[in-house]
């Protein structure tokens, strides 16, 4: 029984080592694309992708605000004047975000 337990423990340990070392082994293979960058700096394409993700999150939040404002107006919580001003402001803010996303380059995926 003790032998079985030791073997099971070693097998589990081996599985764990294989699992957590897989990225290290993949990175050390010749020809694998290791990310370049100075100490503490993110690779430019990674920084760009993360900035795009932030902008997309901000875009979704802005779209939600536009829809909420419309629903507030249609359910009588905003007058037409207030809604008009707010709607224009929100759309302007949305376009600023969209312009920034487009400036990062490439098509803007929706959703």
């Amino acid at each position: 029984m003790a032998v079985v337990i030791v073997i099971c423990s070693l097998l589990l340990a081996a599985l764990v080592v294989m699992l957590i070392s897989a990225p290290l082994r993949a990175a050390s293979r010749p020809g694998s694309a290791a990310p370049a960058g100075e100490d503490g700096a993110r690779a430019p394409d990674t920084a760009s992708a993360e900035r795009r993700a932030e902008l997309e999150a901000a875009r979704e939040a802005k779209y939600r605000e536009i829809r909420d404002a419309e629903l507030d107006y249609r359910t009588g919580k905003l007058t037409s004047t207030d809604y008009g001003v707010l709607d224009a402001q929100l759309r302007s803010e949305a376009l600023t975000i969209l312009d920034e996303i487009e400036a990062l380059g490439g098509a803007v995926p929706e959703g």
Partner: protein
Amino acid sequence: MAGLGYACLLLALAVCAYGIGASLYGVRRNRPEYCASGRRSIYALAVILTVAMGVLEVAFLSNDFAFNTVAATSSRTTPTFYRAAAVWSSQEGSLLLWAWLLSLWSSLALFLTRKRMRDVAAYATAILLGFGGFFVSLMIFYANPFATSSPAPAEGVGLDPLLRFPTMMIHPPMLYSGYTLCTIPFAFGMGALIARRLEADWLKVIRRFAFAAWLFLGMGILLGARWSYSELGWGGYWGWDAVENASLMPWLTGTAFLHSLMIQEKRGMLKVWNVSLVLATGTLAIMGTFLVRSGVLNSIHAFGGATLGVPFVCLIAVLIGGSIYTVVSRRELLRSENRLDSLLSRESIFLANNLVLVGLCFVIFWGTYFPLISAALTGQEASVGPPWFDRYTVPLALILVLLSGIGPVISWRRASLANARRNFMAPLACAAATLIVLLAAGVAHKTFAITMFCCAAFVFGSVGQEFVRGTRARRAMAGEAPARALLALVRRNRRRYGGYIVHLGIAVLFVGVAASSSFQHASELQLGPGQSTKVGAYRIRYVEPTASVTPKNDRAHTGSTLSLGAVLDVTKNGRHVATLRPSEGFYASGNPAEGSVSSLIGGQAVSHIGMDGGITRDVWSAIAPNIEAPGLKRIVTAGNATLPPEEAGIALVYLARAYLRRPPPTQFHFLVSPLVMWIWLGGLIVFGGGLIAAWPAPSAVRSRVAARSRARALRGLARA
């Protein structure tokens, strides 16, 4: 097999240590392969702890009493379901459950974020592995679930009778899932602060886990309240017990966060507040775990032993110190992007709601921890009981319910006074109508109940109005039938209308609390068979005694050796209302020195209530049969003197017959509680609404909506 389990703990600790190092090295040196390896350490931790849980479960299910935890909390006569769940009834097993659930939820969180916020996720990985390593260390050095004894005892002690209740066995996994899920927003929040990445993206990630924590913690709290009401024999569902409070506090701050998060998403405001709430919620979850295991409490929830207090205090000190330091050092990044446009806006209502929720948390925190701190400093016990808590929490609860009705009728950013006046008409009319009805019913002296009912009516009115107006607007736009329009309205605006349903559920829940606490009839009765008495409008008659000796009659798998009870007939105005069958189960003490018969019934006595529940009221009864009555005591004494242990069961049969033949006058606790069912229904509505609010739209729908929104944004600007 215990060796395999212990080996898993050692391997888990090594993986945690490696993962922390790899994640931090990877993020500091921009080596994503090390970050990925660190993330996989969490997955590996989940695998290892699943094996460990499996080993312990097999030990319980196979009655391997060589395991100390199995011998202490299970037995051959414990039903299989309770044996499987008994794993987490001990300190050691519950620590393993905690660590296992943490590893599973952390794995899910890191898998879902594997392609985003790499630097934030790396720090979060290190923090989550730190928590995992802490709990694994506790098991290795203080409370080993795989500790064994040799020779193994032939039989175990059995499961605590108070835990032989199905809801009670689901309650810990729900509660621990809530606690462990609270650590995920904590870890990502801390990671975002350390990495100085505090833009919108990290909120989106933690929002779903903050919601999941809120959901599981809330369900765990509700299940615990239900167990208290149905099992403990005192007729209450909330006693302001320290451990109850400890689970409620992170739920309150989590609720506050889910509201103020919306303000940050929309307006870029309340960043310091939100990050503080996230960190506080995670810390409070750890503090709640600490309370149960520290040995400072004498509570039905507490695990015995005072060995874990010091490590937990150290961890909590690190969490609090680290949180304060990172928030203060990153305050420049947490500046608000906008200011509050108007006091008459949904943002300001949310802010008020946050202040009330945090205020509630503070009151409960003070009432829970002050006695402990006072005892530690002065050596004198101080007590803070339900009256103290009620004095401060009741007014705050009233304000909370009121705000949950005001929020839906106020617009975001800025509402006009004229519009607000118009929108408040219907809810105020509902509240006024309720007040008139209550005053006419002659309950003017029940101030709390009346106020709460009126606030709840206000909520029903405002939420109802929102659904009606929204459906009408949808019909005007899309020409749909009312039912279809309502469905489409909710589907397209899940967050808003799911949130409204949550508010409705809160109002329903508090109506139940107010009614059951203000209008409850409670009475202590002493009755003999055939006798009856009046309690309020109800007449209770003791019909006949009941008695059973296990194992043949243990249909409820209570494990009691002897059960004595009664049949009560409850009538109102001559009309039959309910038949109640309360009983008390007597359990073996396991101490042969008490005597062969006494040891069979000298253990914990557990009340099994008789209850008839309905939508308008619960009729509830508990019994305290007098097993020391002269006639019964004679049988026990004679049995102790003459019967060997293996034949002592015969005396129980004589006891049961004697009780049936000539039952002594018996003490009953009798309650009529109005609207208790509303508490459980309100809870279900809250969680149903929460699920609707958090349910993601299908990706195709998201794409269509986003594309349409973009087109409309462009068109709108062209017109302007």
